[in-house]
């Protein structure tokens, strides 16, 4: 329980009317840490969001691949694993835009199918991780004391255990593995990052007086979390989800690559796995392994840059001008 010192700080670092606040900011401003969104008008946030280059670039890259996921399957009339879609090991051609594999499967069809499953796994996995992170983070941050102590230890334990090693065991014994299994697994092992971030933010908000005021108005604590604390962090939660989403894509690709991914559906990781197994790298069939990796890098890179842009929009201190 941190004791708040009643130092008589004449300049409150909260948002005084813009004119006065900025005039007197002087040294005080440098000491302001990352703060939850101050109640700026919605239009103002939208204005800055639309003019933030990082957000636009990152966002459009991710959007492009999202569209490709839906439009792609319509463009090709081959199934992802269909044989005889073209000559074996054929480089990109008019018929097979991304060329063909050693088995004559159409790479573009596999690529587009893989995109779909990767996005699916990432959304479910990332969403689940954020959800668990919220539950643990809010409870630990709000409740404090022993509950906080125990949840913190649990978070640290799950954080330290290399999740890949745990999956080695589970997946090895699991014959049939679907996308849902992989998403569940990712969700249940990558939540500690979200939990740590949300706990810290909740802890800082919990010490604000408006939480005490809500308690003085007879509002119950879980209601306080969802009507007072969570809305303040909405931008923060969205950014956490974006990071979890990107992380899930990377983990899913790694698992598929080792052969622990879903056995029955196409995925970007699986494409790279088969490419390496059939030594596409040694034989120079670049069209087989370049697209899947490139897609992952661009999507996850786009997400991270989008996140930086969002951070600048919601947290003016970082904005250079």
């Amino acid at each position, binding site marked *: 329980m941190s004791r708040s*010192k009643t130092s008589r700080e004449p300049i409150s670092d909260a948002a005084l*009317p813009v004119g006065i606040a900025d005039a007197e900011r002087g040294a005080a401003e440098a000491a302001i840490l990352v703060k939850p969104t101050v109640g700026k008008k919605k239009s103002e946030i939208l204005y800055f969001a639309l003019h933030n280059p990082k957000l636009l670039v990152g966002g459009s890259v991710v959007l492009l691949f999202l569209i490709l996921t839906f439009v792609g399957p319509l463009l090709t009339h081959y199934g992802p694993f269909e044989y005889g879609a073209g000559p074996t090991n054929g480089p990109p051609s008019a018929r097979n835009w991304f060329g063909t594999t050693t088995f004559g499967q159409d790479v573009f069809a596999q690529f587009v199918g893989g995109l779909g499953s990767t996005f699916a796994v990432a959304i479910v996995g990332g969403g689940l991780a954020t959800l668990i992170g919220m539950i643990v983070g809010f409870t630990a941050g709000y409740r404090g004391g022993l509950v906080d102590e125990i949840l913190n230890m649990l978070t640290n334990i799950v954080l330290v255990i290399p999740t890949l090693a745990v999956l080695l065991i589970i997946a090895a014994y699991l014959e049939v593995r679907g996308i849902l299994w992989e998403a569940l697994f990712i969700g249940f092992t990558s939540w500690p990052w979200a939990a740590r971030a949300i706990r810290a933010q909740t802890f800082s908000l919990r010490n604000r007086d408006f939480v005490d005021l809500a308690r003085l108005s007879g509002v119950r604590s879980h209601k306080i979390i969802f009507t007072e604390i969570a809305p303040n962090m909405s931008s923060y939660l969205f950014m956490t989800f974006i990071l979890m989403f990107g992380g899930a894509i990377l983990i899913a690709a790694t698992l598929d690559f080792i052969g622990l991914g879903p056995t029955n559906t196409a995925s970007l990781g699986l494409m790279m796995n088969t490419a390496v197994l059939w030594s596409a790298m040694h034989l120079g069939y670049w069209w087989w392994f370049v697209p899947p990796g490139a897609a992952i890098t661009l999507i996850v890179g786009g997400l991270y840059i989008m996140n930086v842009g969002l951070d600048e929009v919601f947290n003016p201190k970082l904005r250079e001008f």
Partner: protein
Amino acid sequence: MLKLDGISKTYRIGTFGGKELRAVNNISFDIAPGEVVSLIGESGSGKSTIGKMILRLISVTSGSILFEEVDIATLSRRQLRDYYRRVQGVFQDPFSSYNPIFKADRVFSIIKRVYFRHVPDDEWDAKLRSSLEAVGLNPPEVLDKYPHQLSGGQLQRLLIARALLLDIEVLVADEIISMLDASTRIDVLNLLAELKTRGLAILFITHDLSLGHYISEKAVILYRGAIAEMGTTDRVFNNPHHPYTQMLMRSVPHLDSRWEGKEAVAEGPEEGLLVPGCPYFARCPVSQRSQACKSAIPELLETEPGHFVACRRYADILSEPTPPA
């Protein structure tokens, strides 16, 4: 009406025990209906902790707080809700008391939903407007605005208006004007004083002696979690007995007299740590600092009607009839 009976609050530092920090140490005083009591203490004296305990925002380690002879720790959730209809609080930082992403008047809709669910809207609006005017605010100026569009003074008055809507009997005002500018500060103070005439009891928590003197009839001087001196404001301010209060009176900058002599910097042991004897022992200049001061905590003795002091010097003298030198 509100009685504090030997309450204490200790915090454990470090996860598995380790040091124990006693923020509040066996405090007892009471607040009569319509009485303004100022709780004066510097940072680390535990004054805010006491305020939070009365509002049941934090638990009491030992002792009990009785509201109309009922220990508030035993109140169920429903009873607590009724308790909050009669005892409310206003805090130090006006901008931290409002959720920044909602409009400021949301504090009213929260209490409407909880306490006045069945009151028709037009009747509620009238009630709201009259309480706003009662605190010197002009409704159109402050309603439907974000907190950062209002000044510190206006925000604090809104909170007082909120308390008036619940027509409370006791208001815990924890440093409510220390973050306001001098010019608006005095108006909020005058507002509190006027509320007293309407029968409201106020626990005015502050570190500024002149504010305490301006508004309260009874003053409680706190030092490191224990009451150093307590009594009617005039007696405590005009004729301070405890060395700590005397030092405070000497150190406060006045506008009409300059400091005389010199004041040493006081760096006592870390705040709140368990000190066996009198908490002020380390800084006490009084010559008769005897072994007794070091070993036992002095209890509160009545040196004159309505004036209590926790200092060993008075215990020995009181046993003899002659007044202290």
